[in-house]
């Protein structure tokens, strides 16, 4: 698990083509040529990073400001975990 104070940044918006299908979002990454299907909260995390690099706690704060989180007490921990998944796909990187 990456350190919690680690800052994350996402791919620039023009690198990704994002199509909301239903509960899932299809993302085409022009840099990797890969297609990903993302469930909540991954598209929301990518969107939250558009306003600038942030660590997991800051991302959690941005999400909590925009949404009612319905199912988790420890949002930063879950966000960290999701960032790991996005990192493996190359959709976010660590600074």
């Amino acid at each position: 698990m990456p350190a919690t104070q680690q800052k994350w940044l996402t791919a620039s918006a023009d690198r990704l083509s994002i199509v909301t299908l239903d509960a899932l979002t299809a993302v085409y990454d022009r840099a990797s040529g890969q297609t990903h299907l993302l469930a909540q909260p991954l598209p929301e995390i990518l969107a939250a990073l558009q306003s600038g690099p942030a660590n997991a706690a800051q991302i959690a704060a941005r999400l909590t400001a925009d949404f009612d989180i319905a199912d988790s007490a420890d949002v930063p921990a879950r966000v960290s975990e999701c960032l790991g998944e996005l990192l493996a796909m190359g959709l976010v990187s660590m600074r």
Partner: protein
Amino acid sequence: MMVSNLAKTREMRDSKARVPNNMENPMMDDKQLTPESLVGDSLSAPTPGHSAARRRVLMVGAAGVAAAVTVRPAFAQTAASVFNCEIPVPEPVSSGQLIALDGTLVPAGTQGAFPGSTRPFTGEEVRAALQGRSLPGTTAEQGSAYMNYIRRLRAGQSGFTCYASIQVPR
């Protein structure tokens, strides 16, 4: 039958049209994420019913649950059947015999031969093995005996159709 099914379709289609962006996150109790687990449950997931709320609801999901799947190349014409079919090694009628390194069936007690696999291999495992990976749960020599057995399959033997269907390169 048709009438009731059609009614059901209409109802489902309408409900699909109503599905809001805050549709509940797919529930998965398995770390392994498959297209089916990702989307199958989402169909039956109940729609949260708080229309009065202005703020959107976000489900971040439980710890350890994967939330993404990446599309991989699927080259087989019969892509779907590849993932479903199975190849027993050896076929049930030959159980009790051993498999020699060259894939032939030999009597029990033969030196250097291996007992059959306790479970059939899936088309996907065999396809991966054809590309050079090892068959799961086998040693190198055992795996190569099993693969030689599979290569020798002929029409009519169990597993042949499956083997034939994965004969398309990725």
